[in-house]
């Protein structure tokens, strides 16, 4: 990284940049190609997945948590959703956990044909196979992790109600009196082992006042400002237009100001504007916030101006067969390549305080989705309206996307634990005519046992929800 003294260089380039209205103050960005800057890396290669840790797996049936499940940590995981770990003793590019060690920590081997990309590389093993490595560090799974979202041998199922895990075993504990299960305390992990976390992002040099947050609407980790509001990056030409125009459309974009003493840092450079103020740029692209983003997590600027994008640090993997559509009623939703809305089937849980109808009012609970499986209790009659969103036979999991095999042998896309579906009543992009469709259970048979795949406190039922990124 090169740091430039602002006073000297700024004066020099200001003259050259006078015609365009703004100047780049940092040598590090002077040759930056905006089109290259847009190629933000995808978090995971094919064959490597991600799982949220802790309560974000959705085991806890506490009514308040259903509407406010924090995704504090997201781990890189293998194709079964098992958390991946690195070992401090491994030198870069070598896997040394073998023999006795390998009985506890199992090498995360790559599928044949796996390809290295970005920070992901492959280590040759003695048996001719390859082991995945992240930033040169070999990756392993931990045999005491029993289900997706486990960390250091502690299952997220222990955080919530009794539940059947993916292996069909009842796990966890709960608050329903005699159904309460015994919570087991995991032994501490051996020294030197660390989970490979996709989030929070480590080792990223950030100017003061900026942070990185998950922004599901953009399927990415993005820069946020001091208020945790989404930050956007503009093409150089668009930045010039914004600077020189005074329309309401331009004023929607507020400059992410850098202090006069701030210096370039890592991928961040400084632009001097024509009024003498300084503006942060990321990968050479000037940064803004959007006045239409009223709260953290909003990304309303995405659909306003195609020349500005969220300032993404890394993006989720998205299968080519999937798109993200902006809808009038529910914001951005996952859709087929043709734009038809994708759905998940979910177990109903009451929201104390309302909020069910709000966007993200019912966040994904991967454990519930896995319980429901590819069938999602959608019988033959149900499947006249609901069709599984099928994947190609050779489709591979990556990121939050998994590929499950249906009873008929066909592959189905799974997102964050939920098998995905399309609805026959949707005819064009933006239609969401299957959203909020319920199948409720109120039986008059005193001996009827409700079984909708997820524990209920009150009303038992399943509902179809739009799938959101």
């Amino acid at each position: 990284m090169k740091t430039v003294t602002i006073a000297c260089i700024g004066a020099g380039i200001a003259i050259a940049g006078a015609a365009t209205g703004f100047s780049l103050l940092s040598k590090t960005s002077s040759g930056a190609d905006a089109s290259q800057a847009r190629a933000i890396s995808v978090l995971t290669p094919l064959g490597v997945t991600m799982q949220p840790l802790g309560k974000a797996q959705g085991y806890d049936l506490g009514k308040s948590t259903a509407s406010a499940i924090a995704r504090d940590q997201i781990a890189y995981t293998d194709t079964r959703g098992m958390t991946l770990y690195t070992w401090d003793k491994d030198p870069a590019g070598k896997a040394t956990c073998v023999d006795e060690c390998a009985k506890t920590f199992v090498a995360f081997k790559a599928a044949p044909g796996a390809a290295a990309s970005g920070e992901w590389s492959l280590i040759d093993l003695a048996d001719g196979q390859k082991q995945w490595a992240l930033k040169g560090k070999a990756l392993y799974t931990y045999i005491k992790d029993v289900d997706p979202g486990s960390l250091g041998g502690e299952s997220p199922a222990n955080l919530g109600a009794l539940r059947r895990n993916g292996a069909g075993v009842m796990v966890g504990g709960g608050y329903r009196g005699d159904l309460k299960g015994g919570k087991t305390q995991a032994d501490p992990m051996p020294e030197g082992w660390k989970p490979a976390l996709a989030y929070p992002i480590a080792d990223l040099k950030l100017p003061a006042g900026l942070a990185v947050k998950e922004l599901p609407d953009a399927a990415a980790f993005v820069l946020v400002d001091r208020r945790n509001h989404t930050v956007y990056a503009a093409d150089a030409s668009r930045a010039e237009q914004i600077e020189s125009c005074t329309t309401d459309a331009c004023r929607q974009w507020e400059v992410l100001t850098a202090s006069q003493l701030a210096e370039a840092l890592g991928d961040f450079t400084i632009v001097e504007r024509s009024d003498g103020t300084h503006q942060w740029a990321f990968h050479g692209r000037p940064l803004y916030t959007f006045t239409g983003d009223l709260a953290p997590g909003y990304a309303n600027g995405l659909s306003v101006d195609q020349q500005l994008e969220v300032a993404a640090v890394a993006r989720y993997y998205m299968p080519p067969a999937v798109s993200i559509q902006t809808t009038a009623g529910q914001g951005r939703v996952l859709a087929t390549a043709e734009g038809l809305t994708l759905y998940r089937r979910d177990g109903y849980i009451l929201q104390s305080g309302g909020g069910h109808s709000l966007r993200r009012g019912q966040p994904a609970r991967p454990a519930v989705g896995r319980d429901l499986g590819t069938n999602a209790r959608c019988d033959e009659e149900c499947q006249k309206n609901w069709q599984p969103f099928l994947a190609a036979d050779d489709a591979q999991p990556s990121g939050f996307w998994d590929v499950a095999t249906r009873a008929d042998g066909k592959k189905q896309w799974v997102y964050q634990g939920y098998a995905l579906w399309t609805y026959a009543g949707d005819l064009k992009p933006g239609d969401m005519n299957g959203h909020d469709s319920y199948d409720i259970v109120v039986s008059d048979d005193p001996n009827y046992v409700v079984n909708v795949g997820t524990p209920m406190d009150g009303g038992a039922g399943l509902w179809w929800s739009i799938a959101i990124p």
Partner: protein
Amino acid sequence: MKRIVLASLTLACLPLANAAAETRHFAISWFSQATYSNDHDCSQGVHPAVEEVYLRYAAKLGATPQQVAEWRRKIMNGDEVRDLDQLIMNRGRIDGKPVNPYTHPASVVDLSLPGLDGKEGFGFDLDGKGADQPGSFQDPETKERGVDHNLYRALGCTRAFRGSLASRPTYWAWAWGQLKDSQPAWLITLEGADLKKDGPVTVGIDRAYEYLRSNSDGSPRFDMAYRVDPDPRSRNQFKGELRDGVVTITEHGKLRLLQNPLVSPEFNLKDVHLRLELKADRSARGFMGGYTPWRPIYWGIAGVGFGGEQQVTGDVPGFYHLLKRYADADPDPVTGQNESISATYYIEAVPAFVKDAGAPTPQVTRR
């Protein structure tokens, strides 16, 4: 020449004719079961407090009188009764084993708590049987007799559902207080030649994308803008008439609106009746009646589980037995069990601006 003049006049008048048509939009700002509770409508008494109901269940489930007395003493003292809680929150029985009573209400013993037997209740004579029909009400405002409102009969003696138009039932105050700020608003659109005069009107009832907009004190805000959700599940139109400032529906069809699972996933009415009074301050208030499926009503109440049962609703499985008992329409062809119940809902609405959601978002000005 005359033909030409006539044609010209006709063309010139077309815009005038259109301009004469009037449309008024409203956003529903209060929605609840219509109740008219008074001191004489539950001859066997209002249902006991939930703790007392729990003790009755305990006795039915085999608790000894001594145990029940001890629990009563603790409850009166404000002490914890965890063993009673465990019994109650699993008071359903299937093959003798305890099960969740809220998801398995039929497995819970019916305490046979009474329904309401008062004479007055809001609504409409849905079945046309008039005053002779046993169990029907007289509407306290219109004085119409033969009113069918068995939902009020079923729930009218439960504490959470007692109230009046001015003093709102606890359940609905609790539910609406949560829903109004998150559930997409319901919209009413009136169209007629001149809504200041009597005449035929069209009544549209739709769902918005936006939830109800409120003032800082929580009261509904007049003249806010809403977009109509084009989802066909929430589009309804009825023929009606305006007379003396009151809108009624003259062709009673079916109504379907997506709602919220806090109270019911959908609001369905058949044989829809409406009486909507247009007020001088441009707001509206009135009643909507018809037959509605009762199981979703139970399901919504059951969603609260054990915590909500104690704090808001009272005995949840008891609602199942009451609703099943008082259901008065749509018998199941096999079991004979009525699947729908006559019901009246009270609504208030504020004036609003409404537009179709299909209109594209204006493009940002580009230089």
